[in-house]
C-alpha cells in the first residue's frame, strides 16, 4: 500500500511482514525492515516501540483514503491513495485552500467590534473586512481575495464561532 504524509515530500510504501508474537511485529517501510512492539492499543490510539523508540499515537477521524492522527503530539495527515497525483497538499499555515471561494470565514471565535465595509463595496485582497474581539485582543479579519462584497453575514455586537461565514466576496 502507498502512503503520502502531508507536507512531506517523499511517498511511502508500507506493510506488515511478520507477526513475531508477544505483541511484536516486523514491518517494512520503503523496503526497510522495522521492528514494532505494541505496548498498548485500542481503537482510539496506540503506544509502541518502533526500533526500540517509544511513540504514542491518537487516531482522529479518518475516511477511506485519509487518516488523521497525532503522533508524539505532532498532528499528521496520511493519504492512502494508490494514485499519489491526486493528493491535495495542505499547508499548516492555512493560505492555499479555498482561495477561489466566495466565502470569507472567521478563523477565530469572537465578538464583532466593527464592520469596515458595506455590501457592494469593492475590496482588495488583504483589506480589513471587520474587527473581532477575543481574549481582550482586537483581531482584524481581512479579505482573502479582491472583488466586491456580495453579502455581509455578521452584525456589530454579535458573536461568531470559528468557521462562521463573515462575508461573501465575488
Amino acid at each position, binding site marked *: 500500500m502507498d*502512503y503520502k504524509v502531508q507536507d512531506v515530500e517523499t511517498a511511502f510504501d*508500507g*506493510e506488515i511482514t511478520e507477526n513475531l508474537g508477544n505483541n511484536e511485529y516486523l514491518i517494512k517501510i520503503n523496503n526497510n525492515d522495522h521492528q514494532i512492539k505494541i505496548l498498548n492499543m485500542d481503537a482510539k490510539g*496506540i503506544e509502541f516501540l518502533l526500533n526500540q523508540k517509544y511513540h504514542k499515537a491518537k487516531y482522529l477521524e479518518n475516511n477511506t483514503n485519509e*487518516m488523521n492522527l497525532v503522533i508524539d503530539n*505532532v498532528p499528521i495527515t496520511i493519504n492512502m491513495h494508490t494514485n499519489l497525483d491526486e493528493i491535495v497538499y495542505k499547508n499548516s*499555515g492555512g493560505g492555499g485552500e479555498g482561495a477561489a471561494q466566495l466565502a470569507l470565514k472567521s478563523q*477565530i471565535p469572537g465578538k464583532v467590534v466593527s464592520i469596515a465595509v458595506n455590501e457592494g463595496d469593492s475590496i482588495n485582497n488583504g483589506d480589513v473586512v471587520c474587527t473581532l474581539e477575543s481574549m481582550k485582543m482586537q483581531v482584524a479579519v481581512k479579505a482573502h481575495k479582491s472583488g466586491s462584497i456580495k453579502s455581509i453575514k455578521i452584525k456589530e455586537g454579535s458573536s461568531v464561532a470559528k468557521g462562521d461565514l463573515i462575508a461573501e466576496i465575488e
Partner: protein
Amino acid sequence: MIEKVLIANRGEIALRVIRTCKALGIKTVAVYSDEDYNSLHVKKADESYHIGEAAPAKSYLNQEKILDVMLSSGSDAVHPGYGFLSENDDFANLCEKNKINFIGPTAKSMNLCGDKMECKAAMLKAEVPTVPGSPGLVKDVEEATKIANDIGYPVLLKSVYGGGGRGIRLVNTDDELKTGFESVTGESIAAVGKSAIIVEKFLQKTRHIEYQMCRDKHGNAVHLFERECSIQRRNQKLIEQTPSPVVDQETRERIGELVVKAAEAVDYTNLGTAEFLRADSGDFYFIEINARLQVEHPISEMVSGLDFVKLQIDIANGEPLPFKQSDLKMNGYAIECRINAEDTFLDFAPSTGPVPDVTIPSGPSVRCDTYLYPGCTVSPFYDSLMAKLCTWGNTFEESRTRMLNALNDFYIQGVETSIPLYKTILESEEYKKGELSTDFLQRYNMIEKLKEDLKKEKEDKSEAALAAAIMHSEYFKSRVQSSTSNSSNWKNKLD
C-alpha cells in the same frame, strides 16, 4: 494584620496568590463569573462567590459587587493580581474608604504612576531619564499628529490605562496614526473602561529591560534586580529572563539606584516594576511603572529566593523590609515562557475551547503556574495566558536546556499554543547568544524558522506515523482474524 484576603482576579494569578496565603495561614476568598464556575481558583480558595456574567465589565471589573463580597465575607484585604482592577486607582480608593487593605500602592501613588505624563514629569525631576514624546496627554488625533511630526516617526501611541502590551500601537505615518488612535482607544475601554493617550518616540532595536521595585511604608526601598523581556509579539511579552545578558553588575547597580529614586519620586509602596527601554547605544530610558505584581515575577523569585506575594502582604501589613540592598544576591539564571492559547500562524489569533487533556511539566527547577487541568476550558472572554513555564539553572545554558525539556513535556490538547514557537526561539543561535531586541521575531524570521522546524518534525515522525497507521488498519483485521486463526507466525499483507 491581614487574616482574610479576597482575590479580585482569576486564572493562574489567583491560584498563585492563594498558594502563598495558604502557606501563611491566611484565609482566601475567590470571586468568579458565569464562565469560571469550574475554574481552579474557585476550587482552591476557602470561600468562593459568584459575581456576575462572563464579560469582565459585568464581573471582574464590577467594583461595587466585589466590594459587597469583601464586606459580606469579612475580608480585611484584597489582592488585585494583574490586569482587571489592579491598576485602577478608583478601586484602590474604594478599598481605602472601606478599610480594606489594598495589597499594592496607595490610590494616590497609583494615580500618579497611571498618569503616564505626570509620572514622566516626576521622573525628569528625580533625574531618571525618559523617552522623548508628548509633554502630556494628547487631546485628539490632530494633536497627536502634530507631536509625531515634531519628534519624527515612528512613534508609539499608548493608552495611559493600558498595560501588558494592550492599548499600544506603533505607527509610521499620519494615516496609521489615525486608525491606531481609534483601536488603542477601543482596546483600552474594552479592557479597563477608560482611555487617554500619549505619544512617544519609538526607539530602534531596543531591549525591554525592567526592574523589580520594592518599597515599604516606612520609605525603605530596594530593587530586586532586572528582567529582560525583549521577546515580544504585538508589544506583548512572550519570553522573559533574568539576569539580562547585557546587564553587568556595574550596570545593575547603577540603574538599580535610579529605580530606587523612581520609587521615591512617586512615593511608591509595595512591589512594582519600573520599565526601561535600553537603546542599542546602551542608554536606559524609563518608560513607565507597572503599579502591581507583574506576570513575570516568578523568574525574579527564582533568582532572589523571595516569595513576592508574601513580601507584598508583609508590606501591606506595614512591616519594614527585612533586608537591605546589600543583603540581596542574585543566584543563577531563570527564564519564563508565557504559554498562550494562540495560533502563531494566524498572526497569534486567540484559540479557545475545551482542553480534554493536559500534562504539566515538572522536574528539578521547573515551575509552572497555570490554571489548566484535564477537562478545563480556555475561555474567549479572558486573556490568552494559560500557563507561565519557568525554569532555573545554575548557568544560563542549564536554564535554557531545562526549559526546552519542559516545553517538550508540556502537552495541551484542544487549543493551539505558543509552545512550538518557543522551542524554535530557544534553539536559535540568536537566543543562545543573547542577541535580543523587541523586534526579535521579525528580525530573525522566527515564524519562518518555526515553519521549517515543524516541517522537519513531521518528516522525522513520518515513519512512526506510518507504523501507527499500518497497525491501526491492521488492528480491526486482526481482531476479526484472531477468532479464525491463531498462528503465532501469522503473515499478512496489506494492500
